[in-house]
């Protein structure tokens, strides 16, 4: 039935676009948290600008798609509930983005790049945020082409963009009649733990340093366990190497 198929396509498209917006929002937050610290630099300001522009494009695209879907009166109740849920996802993303943009304006104004008497806060972060920005822009490597006065020039752009986002949110609230509190979440509490199969692997070998204060001997035991694991791992590697050598020789 062509109508249902079209609706499904609409839903999937929406979901992918929302996922993209979600990703860009998360990366933007990481970038803004590095502003004003020792990992701040001209590159960071440029990354912020690019991420912001991408976020805005995605936001406008999402908004047109979702409003078109919601305005359609001929959809079923289930579909309507689903679209309302997607709408709540979209508006929550936009709220976070708006707050982050306003904060980046404030912090950017108080920490200009070129003034030598203005020192950056020594937070301990020294790496660059290139990889985060690359993830946001979905590219392999970031290219930097901005000039030296990006921090002041960009702030004016930022102000106009914040005004645009404000206006967009106001329009959205006025025009689309969705009751956000009536939406029921599909995920239950603790849902984030279920799909962490891929993310779980990374914690092996990550220094769990935020637990560095002594915790009743549990920390000592955990450290010992890590040492054991390391020894066993190297032993396995050695055995595998020896076996391989024997196989080749035989």
């Amino acid at each position, binding site marked *: 039935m062509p109508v249902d198929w079209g609706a499904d396509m609409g839903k999937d498209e929406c979901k992918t676009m929302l996922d993209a917006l979600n990703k860009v929002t998360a990366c933007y937050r990481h970038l803004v948290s590095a502003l004003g610290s020792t990992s701040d630099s001209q590159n960071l300001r440029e990354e912020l600008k690019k991420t912001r522009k991408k976020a805005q494009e995605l936001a406008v695209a999402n908004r047109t798609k979702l409003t078109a879907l919601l305005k359609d009166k001929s959809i079923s109740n289930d579909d309507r509930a689903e679209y309302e849920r997607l709408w709540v996802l979209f508006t929550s993303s936009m709220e976070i983005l708006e707050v982050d943009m306003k904060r980046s304006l404030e912090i950017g104004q108080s920490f200009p790049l070129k003034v030598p008497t203005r020192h950056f806060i020594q937070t301990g972060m020294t790496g660059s945020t290139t990889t985060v920005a690359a993830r946001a822009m979905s590219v392999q490597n970031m290219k930097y082409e901005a000039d030296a006065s990006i921090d002041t020039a960009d702030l004016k752009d930022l102000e106009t963009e914040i005004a645009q986002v404000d206006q967009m949110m106001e329009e959205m609230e006025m025009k689309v009649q969705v009751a956000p509190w009536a939406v029921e979440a599909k995920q239950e509490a603790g849902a984030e733990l279920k799909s962490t199969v891929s993310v779980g692997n990374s914690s092996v070998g990550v220094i769990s*340093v935020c637990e560095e204060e002594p915790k009743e001997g549990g920390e000592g035991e955990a450290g010992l366990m890590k040492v054991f694991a390391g020894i066993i791992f190297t032993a396995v590697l050695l055995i595998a190497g020896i076996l391989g050598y024997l196989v080749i020789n035989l």
Partner: protein
Amino acid sequence: MTIKFIRDHGQHYRPRMACLAKVEAMVLEMQDSKSGVKSSEQKLNITSIPHVVTGQDILAWIANHMKVDAQEAQTIGTMLVAYGFIYPLQDHKKLILKPDVSLYRFQTPYFWPVQKWKADNTDYAIYLAKRNIRKKGTLDVYEQEYYKNLHKWLNHKWDFIVMQAKEQYRAGKERNKADRVVFDCQERAYWIVHRPPPRTHSAMDYGVDRLIDPNAEENKTFDYYRRIIIFTQQAIMRSKVKSTVSLGAILKHMTTYKDHDPFLAPCLPSNPWQTDDSSYWDLNMRNVEIPTKMRVERWSFSFFELLNDPRGRTDFKVFLKKEFSGENLAFWEAAEEMKWGTASSISEKAQTIFKTFLAPGAPRWINIDGRTMGLTVKGLEHPHRYVLDAAQTHIFMLMKKDTFYRYLKSPVYKDIQKKALSPAPHNFTPSQLEQNAQNRKPGINPIIIWQQEEEERAKAAAAAGPIDIKKLMASKLDRK
């Protein structure tokens, strides 16, 4: 989506937090590589993270820069940590500045406390979800409670929260290891300041939100100047008290009430707000049989205290019954009832009071001077709420100057002083405190208490009707 365009004229602005801007300026000066605080490196398993400072270095810098002594520098340093501009690396839940080699790091400007931006519940939910992922489901007890509550309150946004938490976690992994560790520590420190663990308090705690934006300048219109003029005119006309008199009164109040203030002296047995143990409230209920020693001592401070405390009032009534002079207190209570009662019952109450207390030859005739009596009787023709005020004040002064001192020397009072309880102070261990926090239950419904009091009042009214002197004398004559 939160309702952004709030048109309910409610209170939505945070109060002025001017100290934050001043502290920011100081933190910025600490960053100067030449004249700022010396920083070193923190060595972890494989990497080393720069920009770590020791507590004593911070203290020395503050003492030098602001030209204060060590204790003042310690207080200022603790303030820096409590607000979240500097966070401790060891013992991260206790936000104080230790004057030794314990390590601290500066917080990034994004996580600084700002008056304009409130620490949002949505952000906290995202943080807890991220922490859940990182620690594989083993959050702290208070964090688990928060998580459950937030899941209930923010249920409509929960999909978004889970999605955003996963994305932020993945985006965080794009940075190098040292930066990842630093970011985790920063975020954790931020949320310890804004959502403090149990039995600690947050420096960002404030009272009520304000109605108008305290940072917005008020337009100086005609109305504004008119208000200022009226205010200053009234201020000139006010009668002023000499400062020796008012300061003397404050001093006297302080010396009498010093031991009864729960902020200055420890509350016996223990302050329920701090230890979650409600025995203090149970021992001091309105109609308790045996009051506590502190309560009884309080009755001796002033007659007003005695009358205000319901237990004290019952005790005073017992004393007056023995002395056969209960009519003063009965009249005072009846006048209070008229003052606080419903408007429709005023005229009938006025009638009963006149018949019982004020009419010549009334069964419980009170002894007030002629002028007041005349005024009151005339006023009772057209009764209003405060018609008995003059008589009530007169009776109050009579009781205070005469009966009160006799009461304090009477055997009734001495008896109750001896019987009064003095509970031993509690000494809870932290695990017991956790237990108490979990065993909290709501107290007695105030409606039930009110019903009990009504029953008692009805019983008392029926039992002690107006003592008819003629009948009493008749019964005594009979016996003879």
